[in-house]
């Protein structure tokens, strides 16, 4: 497992992970989620926001992607086990892509994006 030697300096800095890329065709979503999981393993579960094409990752009933990749749906469903919940989404990104909330997987919640960014110490985008 991950070493925890730095835990004493990891006071309470909050991390926001923004996923901006779609789930298939590239490894962006997967690598973003892996970073978030490491944060959780170090005792600092990040907040995750899906924005832009990133909201496509939240569509329910996804299969594996092309490219022989593992896909991200199973990872997303497991995030709550690491205290990463809810899965925040940007409503505007949803609307501009013709998507509706009813199409999303369970556990998603509408975000006020500016507020989320303002409330976190560190923002990482993927």
């Amino acid at each position, binding site marked *: 497992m991950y070493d925890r030697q*730095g835990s004493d300096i*990891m006071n309470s*800095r909050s991390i926001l992970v923004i996923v901006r890329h779609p789930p298939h065709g590239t490894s962006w979503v997967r*690598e973003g989620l892996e*970073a978030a999981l490491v944060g959780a393993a*170090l005792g600092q579960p990040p907040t995750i926001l899906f924005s832009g094409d990133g909201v496509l990752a939240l569509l329910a009933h996804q299969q594996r992607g092309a490219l022989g990749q593992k896909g991200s749906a199973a990872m997303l469903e497991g995030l709550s086990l690491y205290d990463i919940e809810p899965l925040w989404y940007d409503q505007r990104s949803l609307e501009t892509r013709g998507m509706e909330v009813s199409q999303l997987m369970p556990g998603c919640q509408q975000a006020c994006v500016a507020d989320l960014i303002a409330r976190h110490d560190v923002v990482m985008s993927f």
Partner: protein
Amino acid sequence: MVSQGLTYALMVQGAPYSQQASHSALRFAEALPAQGHRVATVFFYHDGVYNAASMMSPPRDEPHLLERWRALHQTQHCELLVCVASAVRRGLLDEGEARRHGHPHPTLEAPFELTGLGQLMQAAFQHDRLITFAP
């Protein structure tokens, strides 16, 4: 008046020469000392790991990004950390990994170091700012 400089962590996720991310990150990092700040950690993730390719050989009339990263390491004493999981699957191996996977030559050399994602989080917690450079 002396102001206290800030330490920066940069996360670079763009491949060199095909995207702007590494060029922008370098220009940002090189400009920090003039403002009294410094870059303390550069973390290469996703396709950004190709910035560490030790055999990078660009044409003479283009910027040599590997040399620029090395110079940054020398002048600002920053660590150049490369995500091991992203790097090894893309063929960027230091001496130890090359040996372990049965390859005759390393493709990544000091001052670049292979590290885990935990180091990215450490950098985020330790330094004053973290900036993402991504396509």
